[in-house]
């Protein structure tokens, strides 16, 4: 079973190739190829998972070496697939959620001109993402990392005829590139100091050679963190994600919610040994996560565009994952990554159904009363919202978020404050998502519904709604007396988190607090946006209310700040430097090359006697050197 592993990434790539080469002639068949390849890949992933769980390989690690790319002077980056319980979870999430979103796209994108191009990019994305999570060495991981970045760029700018989509794509690419550069430098640093790129060997080597808390692991961890911040849209590199919503909605669901943006979380979890040895950086991860989750939850509260609400929500939820990573709760981060993939994909797909139902309307204030007109979308969206708001007991989000908050509480460093930030974020989360639910689905209808979702949209919605409920039951808090299956499954990968002497009663208490907070959020949203919207409108009309609203709406002014502090000076510099001195060197080289080109061309006279003379002259020079320079 396990030997089938290579097929899992290979199939989406094959689909991409087929679509890229023959897609234009396929017509509607393109969807079958695109969806089928990912579907088969998901089946093989399930088969591999069954094999992995029923008869675990030694040490719960299975590696498949496909070939060595190059082998020179001890530098031997292999095309090596590495499967352990962490990558297995990621593979399942990517292929299963990916398949559902492909199925959804088959209907969603049907009327689009670029139907086959869309599926080609999507298949390439799934393939690259699988390479990223299965890579056995950092070079291959980086290949996948750049591959998903490229696909993200291509898909954000999918409707390239509108210039603002192109601008959003470029922004996403450039901002993540800052992080990617840090990661590349991190790779060089690690290879230089540890002499290998193989992740496992690297981790062992780091533990042997480096002292915990010394400069080396801190630098390495900081550089890796830089890459993760860019990819996962965390402070201060979060500005690209809201704009990335310019892409088609399935893209937002797959790339900018469920999979690619969580790659940073995966990367840090994968290199957890280094982060454990770098306490300062690890604490920074927690602080960044806490700050990001609060800031973007506040921004989500005031957005008008349904997809931007979800985009800020994604940034905020990844903030929770970073918080978990920062306090060493590795499996809690991955657990939340998984449940978040389910419910956020669901929310995006539901939003997509609403948007296409209203003929491309994004503004939530022009929606309303859709509960009766689009019941399936409503119930599924509501499920996702409940899971995101972590309503107690029945939703997946409750268990994963609860575990993160509990781990934050236990953290030795600033535990209470991190927990407090998380719980405040939970309140905001609950408010902003139910604000969305109440405005969009309740109240009076404002826009006519032109299109009802068909079966290929309904099936993925229902399947994801199901997963958003049951996905949490794999890991229950201790006081339920049920085994925490998920954390145990990941135990072979992660070190056991430092267990503070805390009792199940503490956990029960904390879970109760977060349950109350999330229910309170629902009530607040109900009160301000459905029962008595005049209060919220009044609040927004006061001067400080308006200023704060505007400030949050613009994402805390980060775009403005970067525009003033970085982009404008850079543009100014580029303009001022149009005929710069540095360029003169290259112009000189070009001019010299041209000069020598014309000079040498004169020698090509076409006359044999001249050629023979040069031959003889060359012989004389050769003999002279050979004899005289001895």
């Amino acid at each position: 079973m396990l030997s089938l592993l290579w097929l899992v990434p290979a199939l989406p790539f094959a689909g991409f190739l087929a679509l890229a080469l023959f897609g234009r002639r396929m017509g509607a068949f393109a969807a079958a190829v695109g969806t089928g390849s990912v579907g088969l890949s998901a089946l093989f992933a399930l088969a591999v998972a069954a094999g992995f769980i029923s008869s675990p390989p030694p040490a719960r690690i299975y590696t498949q070496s496909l070939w060595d790319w190059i082998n020179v002077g001890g530098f031997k980056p292999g095309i090596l697939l590495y499967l352990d319980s962490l990558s297995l979870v990621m593979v399942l999430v990517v292929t299963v959620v990916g398949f559902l979103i492909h199925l959804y796209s088959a209907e969603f994108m049907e009327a689009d001109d670029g139907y086959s191009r869309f599926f080609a990019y999507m298949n390439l994305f799934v393939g690259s993402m699988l390479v990223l999570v299965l890579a056995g060495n950092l070079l291959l991981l980086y290949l996948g990392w750049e591959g998903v970045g490229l696909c993200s760029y291509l898909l954000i700018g999918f409707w390239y005829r509108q210039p603002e989509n192109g601008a959003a794509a470029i922004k996403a690419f450039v901002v993540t590139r800052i992080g990617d550069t840090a990661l590349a430098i991190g790779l060089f640093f690690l290879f230089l100091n540890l002499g290998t790129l193989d992740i496992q060997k690297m981790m062992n080597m780091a533990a042997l050679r480096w002292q915990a808390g010394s400069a080396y692991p801190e630098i390495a961890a900081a550089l890796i963190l830089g890459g993760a911040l860019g990819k996962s849209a965390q402070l201060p590199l979060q500005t690209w994600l809201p704009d990335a919503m310019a892409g088609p909605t399935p893209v937002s669901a797959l790339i900018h919610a469920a999979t690619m943006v969580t790659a940073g979380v995966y990367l840090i979890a994968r290199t957890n040994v280094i982060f454990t040895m770098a306490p300062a950086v690890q604490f920074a991860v927690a602080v960044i996560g806490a700050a990001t989750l609060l800031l973007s939850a506040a921004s989500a509260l005031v957005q008008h565009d349904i997809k931007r609400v979800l985009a800020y929500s994604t940034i905020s939820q990844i903030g929770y994952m970073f918080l978990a990573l920062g306090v060493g709760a590795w499996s809690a981060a991955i657990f939340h990554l998984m449940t978040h993939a389910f419910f956020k994909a669901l929310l995006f797909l539901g939003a997509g159904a609403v948007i296409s139902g209203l003929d491309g309307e994004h503004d939530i204030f022009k929606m309303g009363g859709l509960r009766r007109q689009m019941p399936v979308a409503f119930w599924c969206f509501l499920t996702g919202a409940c899971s995101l708001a972590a309503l107690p007991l029945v939703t997946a989000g409750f268990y994963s978020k609860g575990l993160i908050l509990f781990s934050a509480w236990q953290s030795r460093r600033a535990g209470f404050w991190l927990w407090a930030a998380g719980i405040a974020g939970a309140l905001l989360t609950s408010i902003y998502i139910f604000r969305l639910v109440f405005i969009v689905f309740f109240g009076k209808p404002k826009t006519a519904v032109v299109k009802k979702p068909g079966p290929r949209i309904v099936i993925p919605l229902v399947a994801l709604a199901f997963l958003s409920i049951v996905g949490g039951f794999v890991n229950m808090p201790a006081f339920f007396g049920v085994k925490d299956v998920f954390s145990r499954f990941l135990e072979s990968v992660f070190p056991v988190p430092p267990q503070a002497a805390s009792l199940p009663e503490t956990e029960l208490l904390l879970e109760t607090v977060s349950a109350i907070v999330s229910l309170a959020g629902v009530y607040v949203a109900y009160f301000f946006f459905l029962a008595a919207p005049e209060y919220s409108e009044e609040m927004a009309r006061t001067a400080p209310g308006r200023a704060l609203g505007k400030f949050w709406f613009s994402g805390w002014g980060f775009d403005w700040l970067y525009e003033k502090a970085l982009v404008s000076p850079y543009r100014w510099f580029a303009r001022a430097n149009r005929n710069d001195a540095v360029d003169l060197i290259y112009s000189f080289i070009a001019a010299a090359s041209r000069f020598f080109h014309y000079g040498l061309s004169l020698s090509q006279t076409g006359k044999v006697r001249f050629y023979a003379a040069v031959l003889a002259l060359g012989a004389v020079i050769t003999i002279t050197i050979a004899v005289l320079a001895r």
Partner: protein
Amino acid sequence: MSGPDFLALLPLVLVSAMPVVVMLAIAFFRDHVLAAALTLLGLLVCFASLPFAASYAPRHITPLLIIDNYALFYMGLIFAATFAVAVLSYSYLGMLRVRREEFYVLLLLAAAGSSVLVASAHFASFFLGLETLSVSLYALVSYPSSREKAIEAGVKYLVLAAVSSAFLLFGMALVYGQLGTMEFSGIAEGAAGLRAASPAFLGAIALIVVGFGFKLAVAPFHMWTPDVYEGAPAPVSAFVATVSKGAVFALFLRYFARVDIHQMGSLVLAATVISIASMFTGNLLALLQQNVKRILAYSSIAHLGYLVVAFLASGALRVTAVSYYLVSYFIAMLGAFGVVSVLSGREGDAVDLDAYRGLSSRRPFITGVFSAMLFSLAGIPLTAGFIGKFYVIAAGAGSALWLLISMLVVNSAIGVYYYIRVIITMYSARAEGETAETALSKGAVSLGGGLLLAALTLGLVWLGVYPSPLVSLIQKTIQGLR
């Protein structure tokens, strides 16, 4: 000679018999299809005999020849490349108003000469192989005898090659005069005895280097290359660029691995000068060139300069780098000239770069193939050319040839300019008002030609992402040089 000797010699016997077979076949049935089919079949049989012969290698057969894995590897390369040239020639000759069948006899003779070269261990076999190759080439270059340019190219090649052969023979004679032997192994022993002392010996070796240099078309012995490539039919240019140079380079490496060039500092210096001069001359001359065949000719001059860098390295990577680079260079050059060949019409070859403008919209497949070949020649990753260049640089760095490597890097940058220039031309739209009427042939690509180009492209990418099988094959050939 014993039985096993004959068996080891089988590929050489077969490839020498093939011209005779084809010639006799023509005498009775003059038919283009038959001649081409016999040629292709014969080359396949020759290729198939290689693994068989390998089981008897290594083996000295008479003082003249040595059949080892190294020789067999290069024979395989020669047979494969000749096969590709024959496929291209079939459709190319189809449109010429000449007697077509004798072309294949000459082609097979040239392949036989090249095979003798890569297996030779003696000045006599060296010179015989070289002349068999050269004489066939004179005729091949001027084969379309109604074209003035072809005749001109043939005569230029004949005259200049004769001059260079004179240098080579004189060098050989001087070596024989001092050491009394013409066997490479004997020369190596003798050279160890009188090393450093004798200017006459160094001068003799320098003359031999001149002879090699002419055939490899490294600066300053390169002058003939663009004229000959331009005048010759495109498939023959492909043959001159690949088989002829590859075989000579294989022998060059074998000879100077025996007669260790690193013992003769002044010759290393001379080779360094030649290498740098070739890189710059080739790349600078190609820079703004408008004739596609001349661009490829200059490019090949530069590539041979890169190969000399690997040649001057020492250690285990040297042969790997040279052989890998040659394979990638063979594929890319065959593909590039193949494209020129399938685009050529009856009136003349498709040489004008302007005619290639906007090709991508009319012939996407051909454009893709040509771009892939040019990317490989430029050394862009995911193509064989990148891996080849990587090995050359790795070999050079392993031997601390920093000057040569830095020159190679500078020249790679210059090279990218004109390779990309061709690609941009193909992908840019024609100017307004310009008609689509061009000098390029508009006929469909023949099935054989199309398959060949597809296979070459596939091989190019395959070697670029999965080089290890070829590398391990090459590493089996290394002992032959010790």
